[in-house]
């Protein structure tokens, strides 16, 4: 139980670091990487909670969910990278423009 909790806590920590970086880093590549770090944190929580201690086999359901989650993460990362590249080419800067001007 403690080992499982250790993994899960590490996952939560990674998740928070990722979200923090997503919010404060302006560079788009940093933002996308931050999302991936946060995603890895969430997956680690799933895997940590799947541990059943002793010699028992781990719960397979969270592992299946993480697999699905990885597929989703790969696709969303690909889309985000494609959009970021296009925006970078169009504006010359890998940052989101200030949106407050739009009225």
């Amino acid at each position, binding site marked *: 139980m403690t080992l499982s909790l250790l993994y*899960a806590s590490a996952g*939560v920590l990674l*998740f928070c670091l*990722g*979200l923090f970086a*997503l*919010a404060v880093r302006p560079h*788009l590549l940093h*933002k*996308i990487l931050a*999302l991936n770090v*946060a*995603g890895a*944190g*969430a997956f680690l*929580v*799933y895997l940590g*909670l799947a541990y059943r201690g002793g010699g028992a086999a781990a719960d397979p*359901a*969270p592992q299946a*969910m993480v697999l*699905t*989650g990885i597929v*989703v993460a790969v*696709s*969303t990362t690909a*889309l*985000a990278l494609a*959009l*970021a590249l*296009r*925006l970078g080419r*169009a*504006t010359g800067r890998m940052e*989101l*423009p200030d*949106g407050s001007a*739009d*009225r």
Partner: protein
Amino acid sequence: MNPGDWLAHWWPGLLLGPALLGGALAFVWPRLGFALGQGVALLNALAAVLLVWRVAVGGPLAHAAGGWPAPLGIGLRLDGLAVLMVLAAALVAWAGALNARSYFRAHGQAPEGFWPLWLFLMAALNGLFISADLFNLYVMLELTGLAAVGLVVLGGGTDSLAAALRYLLVGLGGSLCYLLGVGLMYGAYGTVDLPLLASQASGPALGAALALMTAGLFFKAGIFPFHFWLPPAHGGAPAPVSAMLSALVVEAAFYLLMRLWLELAPLSLAELALPVSGVLGSAAVVWGAVNALRAERLKLMIAYSTVSQLGYLFLALPLMPLAGAAIWSGAALLVLSHALAKGALFLGAGTVLNVVGHDRIRGLNGLAQRLPLTVAVFVLAAVSLIGLPPSGGFLAKWLLLNGAIAQGQWWAVAVLLVGSVLAGAYMFRVLGRCFTYGHTGGREPGVALAAQWPAFGLAAAAVALGLAGSWVGALALAGSPFEGDALLGVAP
């Protein structure tokens, strides 16, 4: 086997099959995109009407995907609220598909990728509305978000690109919060099936998981102060896309919140946490409306109106656990009438943009003479958004007011009334321009009626919804936690 039984078994296929298959085919053969889009959108609308009838007559439907029952399998269910959401999505998607051809004709043809994404978005929304499994809901949320972001990019230009990317990043951050919440839920209770969790989940883990999922959904729903991504994304997308996004995609997140807090959370937890939603909702009603009043472009004004109207829903959430049936039905009616009216407004704004060449509100003088049918769309949609009788918006707000008064929540009554006045102000600001005498050229020639009728149909449906209101309100209760309760808490 009688037809009813056939429907009871195959309804998920009916809602997901054509849209998914059509989307894949339209991706492989872009040339078939238009025909597939029209055909599947029509088919989906017919299926939605058929299922509304089935649920109204035979009660809610449930299905275990692949024959695997919970706790391991993915449960699907179609109760009153779900089937109404499916109907709203199907109607807006159909009207949008009909309108898309004339909308994009001004630019040659629909951009590549429009039809596959449109059909995928329809499938993802249907999947989201019928899922009763928290993890499956995460996947559907992501699919909806990906399709929506792709559609926003089609607006072309750097602004749309930036709006889409911001929308994507915010949406992904939100869904990760949701995902972590689902993980905690599974870790604590060993299942992600909504009905099972509702019967056995309690304790601090439930509170933590719900808080994470709710925070994620707040971002996805664009509720104040997390709305910053919404106006540029909804205002910059092609008009049929804006219609779908503003009418349904943000409301899908609210729909999930309604499910989580009323079917899963115990009353004590809901009473503790939901006032936050009430405060944010009240702020959104006012903030959205004030910005709608200040907006210079029509589409941006409509997008800010979405921020404001979403506020009503979040405002209704804390009233729901106690006032029950009236607020649940009122929120369902509000979601439905807002979807229809907002869809109509955005489609109408698209026609204006194509014919007039811009959508600056200042420059819309005399529009009633140039585009009478589209201005009629604006008028009917305004009737429902402001909440004038006999529209669906009126009945929804009336039910919400009724519930708020029954509980003595006067702050909610005040916000509802202020919001209606502000909605009147920003809609009349546009309508006032339209009806001034500023254009002598008479009716605009060469505007296809096909571009305008779908929007008119949606707006008329939003108004007519009020006439069928008691029936729709009762249908929304089928399978809900408040099934069997009286619709009105207090006698007038």
